């Protein structure tokens, strides 16, 4: 048993990390599905999209060979519509709401059609948007993730000069650093960022972290408004004995490694336990398996009914050969010579609390998994200290804002994961749009609409 890298052949790595949702091979193939769309009125798919993409409209545009129009329809609602087509949990959003589900028929493959309509636009850098004349205002955006870029794009279109400060070396945020490679490649993420900035008026400064290279005070002084979209980033700890052993990693850094390095260089164990059943847990488990782990077991303290990931996601893990142990709470990690060897779990039963919610209650029954690697995917925590230091009002580190993205500090707005604690990419894109709208209002009102929290 050992944690080691370079387990597979080049061909195997390529195969394991190839696109899980392949695009339509031909125009004809896309047409077959596009023509199935009923063109619903006040469409449930559109209403189920956090960014409100007019789905029937763009699908109709595909059927009329108006690909440019289709791309505009998508990207004008969601500037990351290309990436969202690959990473959105559409089974619980647009495709989940498709009326064909009510006929017990296959939903329209909206994501795949969206990808068909946007991929060419991004690849060929179609200039779909134009900037309005400069209005002489400057806005600082902290974080080049989906919320920040979305906000920056809307602001720039409206004639605002935007500077984005990003702590990493690449833009895209969790899209670039936190999602399974077989869903979206880091290369695509870079192309998408380039597509967004090709509008002009958006200057991204990489390697600039808030609280380190830059401070909020500086930004407030140098810019007319500030949008905070720095996301969440700290992996939640388990607070159980043995967490410090070699071989215990958190899913965020495990995935970050895969995104940032060549696959063969990323080490993985023979027997891996992944703790959690969220989207990130699934991404970590499936990729551990795809890197060559012999056995991967997902451990979750509740049941399928409560799991945060979608059934589709769970099935990806199951099809990859991952095992799932339900109703098991990790209580201790054991090791030899500083290296993890066992994960001890106590079995759990669910009991209804006073509010009728099923809460896990630990029993005496024990289960021991022999492991050489433990990946913790128990969620991410907001940057509470940072938020606290800047005297932003917050709730457990999540910045408090009004419905208009306005924080308690005049001229400082916030949105995305740093406000909601961590949702989908598509939610962050919408937050960015909302933030931009509020900032524009603030700028046009001459800084009046500021502090209302």
């Amino acid at each position, binding site marked *: 048993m050992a944690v080691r890298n370079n387990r597979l052949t080049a061909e195997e790595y390529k195969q394991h990390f190839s696109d899980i949702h392949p695009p339509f091979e031909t125009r004809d193939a896309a*047409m077959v599905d596009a023509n199935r769309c009923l063109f619903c009125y*006040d469409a*449930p798919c559109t209403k189920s999209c956090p960014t409100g993409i007019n789905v029937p409209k763009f699908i109709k545009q595909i059927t009329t060979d108006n690909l440019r129009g289709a791309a505009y329809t998508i990207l004008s609602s969601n500037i990351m519509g290309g990436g969202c087509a690959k990473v959105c949990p559409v089974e619980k959003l647009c495709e989940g*709401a498709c009326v064909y589900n009510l006929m017990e028929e296959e939903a329209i493959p909206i994501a795949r059609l969206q990808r068909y309509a946007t991929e060419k636009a991004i690849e060929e850098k179609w200039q779909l948007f134009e900037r309005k004349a400069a209005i002489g205002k400057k806005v600082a955006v902290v974080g080049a993730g989906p919320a920040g870029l979305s906000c920056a794009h809307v602001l720039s279109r409206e004639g605002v000069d935007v500077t984005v400060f990003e702590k990493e070396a690449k833009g895209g945020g969790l899209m670039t650093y936190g999602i399974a490679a077989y869903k979206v490649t880091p290369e695509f993420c870079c192309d998408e960022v380039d597509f967004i900035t090709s509008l002009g008026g958006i200057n991204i400064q990489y390697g600039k972290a808030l609280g380190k290279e830059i401070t909020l005070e500086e930004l407030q002084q140098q810019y007319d408004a500030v949008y905070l979209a720095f996301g969440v980033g700290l992996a939640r700890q388990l607070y159980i004995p043995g967490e410090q052993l070699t071989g215990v990693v958190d899913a965020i850094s495990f995935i970050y490694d895969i995104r940032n390095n060549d696959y063969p260089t990323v080490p993985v164990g023979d027997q891996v336990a992944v703790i959690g059943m969220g989207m990130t847990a699934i991404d970590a488990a499936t990729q551990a398996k795809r890197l060559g782990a012999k056995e991967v077991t997902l451990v979750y303290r509740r049941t399928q009914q409560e799991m945060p990931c979608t059934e589709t996601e769970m099935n990806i893990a199951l099809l990859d050969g991952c095992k799932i142990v339900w109703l098991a709470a990790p209580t201790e990690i054991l090791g030899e010579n500083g290296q993890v060897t066992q994960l001890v779990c106590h079995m759990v039963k669910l009991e209804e609390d006073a509010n009728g919610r099923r809460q896990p209650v630990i029993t005496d029954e024990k289960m021991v998994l022999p492991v050489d690697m433990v990946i913790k995917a128990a969620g991410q925590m907001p940057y509470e200290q940072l938020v606290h230091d800047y005297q932003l009002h917050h709730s457990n580190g999540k910045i408090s804002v009004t419905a208009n993205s306005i924080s308690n500090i005049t001229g400082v707005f916030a949105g995305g994961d740093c406000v909601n604690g961590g949702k989908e990419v598509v939610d962050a894109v919408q937050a960015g749009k909302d933030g931009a709208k509020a900032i524009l209002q603030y700028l046009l009102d001459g800084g009046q609409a500021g502090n209302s929290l």
Partner: protein
Amino acid sequence: MADISANFLGIRSPNPYWLASAPPTDKKINVLRAFEAGWGGVVWKTLGSQVKNVSSRYSSVDYNGSRVMGFNNIELISDRPLDINLKEIAECVRLFPDRAMIVSLMADNNRESWHELIKKVEDAGAHGLELNFGCPHGMTERGMGAAVGQDPEIAGRVVEWVMEVAKIPVITKLTPNVHSVVPTGRASVLAGSHALSLINTIQSVTGVNLDTFVPNPNVGGQSTFGGYCGPAVKPIALKMLTTISQDPVTSRVPISGIGGISTWKDAAEFMLLGATTVQVCTAAMRYGFRIIEDLCDGLNNWMDEKGFRTIDDFIGRSVPTLTSWEELDINYHIVANINQDKCIHCGLCYISCEDGSHQAINLSYGNPYNTYSIKEEECVGCNLCKLVCPVDNCITMVEQRKGEDYVNWKEFQKRGMPLNDH
């Protein structure tokens, strides 16, 4: 099992399906395969003057991903030598004596040419003749085809020439490129034609290529009006057929129906409106002769279900129900009903009624599914919602008569009944 055989002026066929005069019937090798597949008869591709064809020849109209909803061609009559055609016709008749062999004719525009051609074709053993007065392209410029069919006087004269020598049944094929098919139909019948067939193809431009700017089909950077056919023309053909079935003169002779027939259902509709046999072309060109299997099987099962023993039991049955508008009962009233259990909340009924009809559907917003219901007092019973609904029997039209007695427009005016107040 019902008997689906047809007897058209004594020309018998095991089923009422003939292949129309067109490329599928232009040579022995095709016709023998069609007969082997089970086709009841063929109308051999038009014989007559010498012609030379061009390339390309066909184009089509696609709709919402369905190809060849409509089809057009600029191909001329048979471009094979007459002697070869006649020899092959004789062989087909000999090999399949139980199938109908009609031969389509378009002679040069003089009595002698017609007489000569008819004699040769009869000698070859044809069972009947179909006079091509309909071809809308290529031949009209030379005073043939539709140029004959569009002028009742000329058509009548040519039929007279034909009847002077014809010993076998004569069917006159009518062009739809006229304001009414009845005048030429009457002239033909009065001149002695034993039967009529309709429709021939409709002059058309199927589309313009948006890259080359040349309409379809493209012949070296140019195009020409082609004859339109296929599923798209069926409603027009049915209307024209009905006018022939209802006219006191033309209704005296049997009719072979043509125009977009692709399925047994289409065929049954043509027969209900007066056709004794039906002719198929586009569907066979698209899918091949094998479609004859379901054409026969479906018709047979439907006849069994309806209790029809022979096709004569239902030919023309729907003709009397097509009347003029002013005979319709104004007291008959229906309103739409939405079955909420079947509704999939697509909103298509709502938006079509709201923007396209009479604003008679309520929308109650939901997330993500809206609920739709009928405002019965506003519903005029137009059918639009039912037509656009993607779910079978989700929207039904329920009868709610305005009065017990039958009141048509004339009676309505006579009684001075009130007009709509909205």
